[in-house]
């Protein structure tokens, strides 16, 4: 059984561009959460999706948006990239209120 998979592993973008990150949850998990982790810091909660809707959101601007598909996979979109958006982006899936399992992350570098 595959765990949480994220793609791509690494990504380099230019300031002002847009980026889409993808996450496939663990089998049987219907809830996907996204986190941003800056270097040397703990992960920060961005938002959470289940039943194809955003249910909870952290303190992130509207440039950060997402989507969840009927198969529970999810995308994170970031528009108008800033240098400060450079970070490790982590996806976590969980079965409802069960434990969260994390993917290996996408390392985004904005230049």
């Amino acid at each position, binding site marked *: 059984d595959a765990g949480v998979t994220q793609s791509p592993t690494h990504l380099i973008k230019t300031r002002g561009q847009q980026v889409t990150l993808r996450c496939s949850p663990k089998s049987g998990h219907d809830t996907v959460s996204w986190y941003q982790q800056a270097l040397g*810091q703990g*992960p920060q909660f961005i938002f959470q999706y*289940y039943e194809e809707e955003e249910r*909870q959101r952290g303190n992130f601007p509207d440039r950060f948006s997402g989507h969840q598909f009927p198969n529970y996979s999810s995308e994170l979109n970031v528009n108008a990239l800033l240098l400060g958006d450079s970070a*490790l982006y982590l996806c*976590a899936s969980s079965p409802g*209120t*069960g434990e969260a399992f*994390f993917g290996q992350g996408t390392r985004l570098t904005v230049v």
Partner: protein
Amino acid sequence: SQQGEEDPQALSIQEGENATMNCSYKTSINNLQWYRQNSGRGLVHLILIRSNEREKHSGRLRVTLDTSKKSSSLLITASRAADTASYFCATDTSTGRRALTFGSGTRLQVQP
């Protein structure tokens, strides 16, 4: 903002020694979890302790929770070089689906 803050920020010990990391948080919680992260990659769930529990064990790990002091500690006994990683506490204030608030982490180095 960070809900939890780990202490110390960095810890270096010899193999076989015990490692203790502390976490403080600000608001009431439903549960507290500890995670490990190797080399800036994905997080591995270690242990969850609920707000009505005071201590929990899992293998070489022992977690305590003091809700009156809003603090938790993670003890790793008989440490190994493979335990070298960053350790984070994460609090969950929701009663529903998990939206975790992480601390800034403790970087543990275990010298062989």
